[in-house]
């Protein structure tokens, strides 16, 4: 399975889905899908690095923690991220995100993300790789 991301429809909000050969790559791709809810990830220059560490009792809550960690950094630093690296170690996630401060004129940010929900939350092996998805509230 090649790594990639997509959005899936939800009544009022947006579903984010990442997939890849490994669970960690699926988490990285889900983060790209998260950025894409706000702006084009390719338009974000990865010039500042932010570290995110989190832990959770299972893979699905860990995905929600990872995305919520990113949402928190986006909100408090007023940044967008365009590149991600994730290392998983049992219940622990060590993540890095690279990005830059929001530039309203250049990024045309559509909407701020309030939080990652547990709706349609799923982390599973699929088609020889991994899929990681949930719905985010905007």
């Amino acid at each position, binding site marked *: 399975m090649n790594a990639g991301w997509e*959005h899936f*429809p*939800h*009544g*009022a*909000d*947006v579903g984010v889905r990442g997939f890849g050969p490994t669970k960690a790559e699926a988490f990285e791709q889900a983060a790209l899908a998260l950025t894409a*809810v*706000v*702006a084009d990830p390719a338009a974000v220059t990865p010039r500042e690095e932010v570290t995110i560490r989190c832990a959770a*009792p299972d893979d*699905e*809550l860990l995905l*929600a*923690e990872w995305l*919520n960690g990113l*949402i*928190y950094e986006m*909100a*408090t630093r*007023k940044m967008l991220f365009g590149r991600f690296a994730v290392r998983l170690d049992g219940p622990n996630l060590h993540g890095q995100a690279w990005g830059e*401060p*929001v530039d*309203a*004129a250049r990024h*045309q*940010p*559509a*909407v*701020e993300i*309030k*939080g*990652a*929900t*547990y*709706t349609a*939350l799923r982390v599973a092996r699929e088609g020889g790789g991994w899929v990681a998805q949930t*719905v985010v*509230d*905007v």
Partner: protein
Amino acid sequence: MDINLLKRRSEHEWEIPAHGAMRVPAVIYASEPLVRDMDHKVYEQAVNVATLPGIVGASYAMPDAHWGYGFPIGGVAAFDPDAGGVVSAGGVGFDISCGVRCLHTGLTRADVLPVQKALADVLYQRIPAGVGSTGAIRLGAEEMDAMLTGGARWAVERGWGAPADLERIEERGQMKHAKPDSVSPQAKKRQRDEMGTLGSGNHYLEVQEVTAVYDAAIAAAFGLAADDIVVMIHCGSRGLGHQIGTDYLRRMAVAAASYGITLPDRELACAPIESDVGREYLGAMRAAINCALANRQILTHLVRDVFAGILPRARLPLLYDVSHNTCKVEEHRADGGTRKLYVHRKGATRAFGPGHPDIPEPLRAVGQPVLIGGSMGTGSYVLAGTKASEALAFSSACHGAGRAMSRHQALRTWKGRQVIDELAGRGILIRSPSGRGVAEEAPGAYKDVAAVVDAADAAGLARKVARLEPLVCIKG
């Protein structure tokens, strides 16, 4: 939704009889076309809510119900603490106390049209809106806690508004029993520079005109007449509320099993009202309600300042301020007696009927104003709470139109510039930092708010009073 799954109680009332793990039935208030149009997820979610411990009466869905998280958006459920009732972070949502405030102006359409463009430009300049925007106010730790305890009352004491404003806000502008200590440092940090900001997405600030009056007597009591200009503000508790939702959703999802609660959907994460997590959430959620009330109060101050510069004779007292994502303790009639219940309204507006003591005295005889936001191109409505709503859905009504189309599909269908130009052609001036944001919020992406309001009126949840249409819309 397949209507064959429902029992039709009356023209606008549909029942999902209790089955399986449901403790009570689910009841949907809507016209047949609206019910047919609802996602099947509304059915599933209304059923899931009905399985939660201590639920009283029924799990209700308003005419604008759509697929939410755990609870449907447009969901109402009341829980009895004496029957093991729960409080649910998912049942309130991330944007705690998101709501709508309506201000009179004392102006008419003819007063505003000559300065419509200036009003749009200056409001856009002065109201922080959109992703990454910040307000001018910075709160230190002590002042943050004072705001979280004081709500709009705190804002008025700091000079952002007048004491008379407080009479026209639910809870008189201050939600009691808020506990700033139950709010995480992360939530407070997220709010550090977001006081007095509008946010983004479906949040807006509009200058609107009254284009139709349906109930002249109630409209007169509300101070509304055809051609009047009002200002409508739709926003919530900003980053603080979002983070509290995130923090407690996780805590409740992890803790639920320890309370013996089986969750059909993790998003229904909840805790007994009489538990440590439940009490802490209630304290934090009430602090977020105060944050939303303070935020709308500061925005009100900014709006008044703008009007004073452009239309100095305008006076902008509040018509009313409602919140539509909350859990509140209220007394209701249930099972033959009066009980103190924890009423969750997620995308639903409280709609107390005539005579209710919580309605400000000048409006008490006609019922609580119910403010319904539409999309930027269609319109908004003012309704009034009814006596009947108490027995129908613990005095609740709808809150808005609801989306008909995903953001993704809207973005493929419209360009921001095209939407702005088309609305300008109809006399509606849009100001927004994001063309993409405008496209995702295009009027065509929303359901027909008129159908929702008509259904709420016909079901008896609230009475239709007036229709409002925008002249200026500031979009985040």
